[in-house]
């Protein structure tokens, strides 16, 4: 019996640490919609730059083929287009989450950082590739989680291979 005690103690400590870890980890925030004051955002998600940029890596091309095959993107690289409802004080990040696409992100000191949408992630098509967003055709310089949207805004999430792809022919 005496031998058991330290083991039990260790197990208790490990369980406590795990409990702290899990409760401390933030669960995904669900956008609770109130139908009366919800605002409507036109959202487009695309990865056209994989088709247009000549510096795209082979892996990026393979991934686009895969997305088209799995019906996550159309032939031209358009992954989502439609209107999305969000609560008034919510951000570009929430609008993206409400599209129903599989969004993976990391929390950082500057707000959430979206690193992959529908399985297409940063650095997948080249060392500088990744997701950026435009609101009404302009690229804000804060995290999407901190940029509050207003009714009627046009939100555009783009996968860019290089920085120059940002403003290329919006589909």
């Amino acid at each position: 019996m005496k031998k058991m005690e330290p083991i039990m103690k260790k197990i208790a400590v490990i369980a406590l640490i795990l409990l702290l870890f899990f409760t401390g980890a933030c669960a995904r925030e669900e956008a609770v919609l109130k139908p009366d004051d919800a605002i409507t955002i036109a959202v487009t998600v695309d990865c056209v730059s994989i088709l247009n940029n000549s510096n795209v890596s082979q892996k990026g091309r393979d991934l686009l083929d895969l997305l088209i095959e799995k019906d996550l993107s159309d032939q031209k690289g358009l992954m989502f287009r439609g209107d999305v409802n969000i609560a008034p004080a919510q951000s570009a990040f929430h609008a993206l989450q409400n599209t129903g696409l599989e969004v993976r992100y990391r929390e950082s000191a500057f707000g959430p950082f979206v690193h992959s949408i529908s399985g297409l992630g940063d650095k997948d098509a080249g060392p500088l590739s990744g997701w950026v967003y435009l609101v009404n055709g302009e690229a804000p310089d804060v995290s999407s989680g901190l940029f509050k949207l207003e009714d009627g805004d046009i939100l555009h999430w783009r996968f860019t291979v290089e920085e120059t792809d940002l403003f290329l022919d919006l589909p």
Partner: protein
Amino acid sequence: MMMKKHHPGVVLFYYGSVLVLTMATRHPAVTLLSFLFSLILRFRMEETRKVGHSLFYLLPMILMITLLNGLYSDRGMTLLFSWGPITLSVEGILYGLISGISLSAVILWFQNYHDTMESGRFLAVLGKRLPVISMMVSMIFRAIPDTLEQGREIEQSRRALTGERRGKFQMKHGVTLLTILMGWSMENAIETADAMKAKAYLSDKRIPYAGIRRSLRDLLPLLLTLGSGALVLGGVFLGGAGFLYYPFMQIPQRAERGFFLWLAGSTLLFLLPLFLDALDWALGQLRRQLLREVSPDPFVLQLLPHDLKAGVE
């Protein structure tokens, strides 16, 4: 086994290509093949017990890499389980599994290489071109087992002197051991230097210790290594080595062209030592049969080498 009789340059080239291929790819088919063939070769070279001993370390390592990658990777799309930032996906787990298997395959191939080639033979290959570096490398490899052996001896002497039983590790004994080992290794360095000088290390005329000769027998493994290496490179060039783990595991469309070339090349490369063994065995059988047919007289039989004689009688 067979490769032990070949020129060390050929052995070095073969194992070099195998290791580069195994380390460079994460293609599941090739990694699994590499692991399989390295394990078969291991079982042919070493007793089952010893192979089991190294597997005893390798399997938990594979398991741990699988688990860690499964927990840390969040790129896979086929989710098994998700709790806040912790996601467990099929792709992450399988990528971890293949990484672990790849690492163990590299370790097993290194063990095979070590069993095929002693350090003397390694020195003999590079001794003329890079005398200092090859000497240093082989001395470093020698230093690790030497130090372990010496440490064991010191610990045994200490226990014999104090009459202490095998018990818990104590820090102060560890420090004593380290001090003695330090002194020993310095002394050993001086002794080695003296011995090298006594054997005329600094004189210009040096000849390698092991008697090594090039022969026609080395041509076959060399050509086979080159051939299968060319097949592998051709497959890579045609895009056959492509494989996507994330977001879904899949062979991309462009890989269909070179896939079989890539697979065939790597299989041939991994198969080479076993093939040489089989060839050797078949040739031996043939030779024995021919000898049996001519049925030599007893006097000639006495002159035959031992292994041939056994087949004829």
